[in-house]
């Protein structure tokens, strides 16, 4: 005989708003699937503009994910393992892009890296023009996606604690060895789910990209921008491309959950 735990603290009526909420999130996805023109699906995805947008999106999101790892891992480690004055404020500011409207992020980037921006002239002297280039797309995506990786990894680092690092140090391992052979392997699942989340956020980036990088086919027009444009001219193609992003999002959630579970 198997026992069944009794449900306590969940009133029956709470199921109605809960189900309504779930339906609100799931119904639009169902709508996309229903409206997808399956007979023309692969033709629509095969158009040159769509192909270019898809490849550009994958390329820029991949690059920005690598940038997030390169800078986000050190940031997470500093935030999780050290303490200094103003650390709390710094953490809040670094995580600001999580809540900042992406358009505002795009404007901020424009005034930093744009021609007349804070660093723009420096880049101009070096012969590099950032704004309205593929580089700008990557920067915009990195800007909005970085906090996802930092938050996820900082949490993993705090959960893992420092016990193993202390043991490693007393065994004679210097800080770099401890980081490489103990800290990183222990938080690998957290790092993986953070990277997947960052990749997803990059892939979906719209506001900051269109503001800072514009919408040039093959150069800065990523998948979300292409979908937005197509919506007016070829609604069916827009739906088909949207479905591609939905599938990617579902896969991402699966990966991120797996990372969390093995943590």
């Amino acid at each position: 005989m198997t026992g069944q735990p009794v449900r306590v603290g969940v009133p029956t009526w709470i199921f109605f708003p809960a189900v309504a909420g779930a339906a609100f999130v799931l119904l639009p996805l169902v709508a996309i699937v229903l409206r997808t023109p399956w007979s023309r699906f692969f033709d629509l995805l095969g158009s040159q503009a769509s192909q270019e947008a898809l490849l550009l999106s994958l390329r820029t999101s991949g690059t920005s994910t690598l940038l997030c790892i390169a800078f986000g891992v050190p940031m997470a480690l500093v935030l999780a393992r050290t303490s200094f004055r103003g650390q709390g404020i710094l953490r809040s500011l670094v995580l600001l892009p999580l809540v900042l409207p992406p358009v505002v992020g795009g404007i901020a980037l424009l005034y930093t890296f744009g021609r007349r921006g804070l660093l723009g002239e420096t880049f101009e002297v070096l012969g590099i023009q950032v704004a309205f280039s593929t580089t700008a797309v990557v920067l915009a995506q990195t800007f909005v996606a970085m906090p996802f990786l930092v938050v996820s990894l900082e949490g993993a680092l705090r959960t893992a604690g420092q016990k193993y690092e202390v043991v490693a140090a007393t065994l004679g391992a210097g800080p770099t060895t401890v980081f490489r052979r103990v800290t990183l392997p222990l938080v690998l699942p957290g790092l993986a789910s953070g990277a997947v989340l960052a990749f997803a956020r990059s892939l979906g980036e719209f506001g900051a990209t269109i503001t800072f990088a514009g919408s040039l086919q093959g150069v800065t027009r990523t998948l979300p921008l292409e979908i937005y444009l197509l919506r007016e001219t070829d609604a069916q193609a827009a739906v088909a491309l949207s479905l591609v992003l939905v599938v990617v999002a579902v896969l991402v959630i699966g990966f991120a959950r797996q990372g969390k579970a093995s943590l």
Partner: protein
Amino acid sequence: MTFEYEATVADRGVDLAFDIAPGETVALLGPNGAGKSTVLAVTAGLLRPDVGRVTLDGRPLTVRGHRERDLHVPPHDRQVSLLAQEPLLFPHLSVLDNVAFGPRSRGDSRSGSRAAADQWLREVGIEELADRRPAQLSGGQAQRAAVARALAADPKLLLLDEPMAALDVAVTPALRQTLRRVLAERTVVLVTHDALDALLLADRVIVIDGGEIVDQGDSSEVLARPRSRFTAQIAGLNMIPGTWRDHAVLTAAGMRVEGHPGDPQPHEGDPVVAVFPPSAVSVFLDAPGGSPRNALEVTITHLEPHGGQIRVRTAELSAEITAQAAAELDLAPGSRAFFVIKATEIAVYGT
């Protein structure tokens, strides 16, 4: 190698100083919060004392508030290994790679450090578990692997923080024997709650209470005749020294005490000690006839209450009996009695 420790950690109220001679094992004994862990943390370089000076083998490890310049050698550069209550084996490495971690960090080659690790696994008796993951080990096996890992790092000073506290009582005697063997020639600080650990593993005992040293000296002396309240509580073990003759301990006075010899078995004529807790002793007024038990004739020196029981003391031994039994026997200082102990309750160790 001489280890010299002297440090004050004000907010933990710990202020003490002691030295350890080369190859000596010193047990730090004391109640929770007495400051034992603070000593280990300062020694390992995990905590900076407010004032202090710690040197190992003439090399200053921590200096603060002295005439010399302040100095703090980071933990990885001290050659001080720490073995905690939990084994804390790195979960993502095999047992072999865990043990090879120290040599590898020191810059040994992969194959060289694995060979060294293999050697240490054999030393602690778990060479067949080399390829396992730590999650596949029992508590006792994991702690053995942790011992091997700490020793493989070739520390000049080994810190043991209650290495057997988290283990099943069934596996502690075997691990204690292993530790006794591998710690023999090493310089070790052993933090423990267990008088038997202190007696068997340490040459010297330092008793800490309230952040200061309240008692210290030769292990068997401190534990047999405790001068601090804490030592009396946990120790007060009965110890009868003698020689191993014909499967029993023969004392200088010609008394025969039968007991349970530990591993390794003592040889005929070896100096040994019979150890048993006061709670294992029953007190009788007449010698029980024809029983296989040990009956020692004693003169009682005093009686004192001890945690709900009555502690009956003689010049050398003590027994713990219920207040009711003490009343029925009508014991008083000066009365003659027999201390009776089952042979199975007496542990015999080589000294």
